């Protein structure tokens, strides 16, 4: 689990946007979001003591 991966993907997304490569930028943004959500589920394991 590479904690730095979302930041690396985002930086690559910025670089591709700078070069006006729209398709690659969108793919890298999507990858940033997917990895961020996946890492979140990896870390959010403790049950919360709430009832609704």
């Amino acid at each position, binding site marked *: *689990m*590479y*904690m*730095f991966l*979302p*930041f*690396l993907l*985002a*930086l690559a*997304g*910025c*670089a591709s*946007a*700078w070069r*006006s490569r*729209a398709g690659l*930028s*969108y793919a890298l*943004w999507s990858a*940033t*979001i997917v990895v*961020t*959500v996946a*890492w*979140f589920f*990896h*870390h*959010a394991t*403790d049950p*919360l*003591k*709430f009832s609704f």
Partner: protein
Amino acid sequence: MSEQRPVGAILNMLGLLGISLILTVAFTYQLALGELPCPLCLLQRAGFIAVGMGFLFNMRLGERGSHYAMILVSSLVTGFISMRQVSLHLAPGDPGYGSALFGLHFYTWALIAAIGIVCYVALVFILKDVTGKRDGDAPLNGAASNTVFAIFALLVAANLLSTVLECGAGQCDDNPVRYLLLK
């Protein structure tokens, strides 16, 4: 002949500056007070960076509805992550994680900011309609937009470097106290 800059372009630049400000405040606390970000804190930063990418795409690739959708999705993700952390420290007597700014911890501010970004996008749509400029479609290439772009990219790079130093090639400790690669 000078062409008037579309209101959407200015608001996107301001949006990206706002995201850069959020990242700068978080980074200042990390460097000045030596408070290392926890995994959920880092993911909130990643969420804000994804929000910033939406503003950035509007500036560099032209203003599109899909870019605003990216901003909204990223805000939702950031909001859910911060809501989880708020919930973890909600119990009475829990001191919370890290320093407080104006009485609120950073994850609470992150939740407020995520909601604020959704409101900001709504405001952008309203202002674009009010000013009658609905299709600010051209990418921005001026000095001001390039400077805002550079500041944001620098902050993303700084976060990448700091996360590598803090966590190495693995997952971070839940309560990190030192940089893994600077031991």
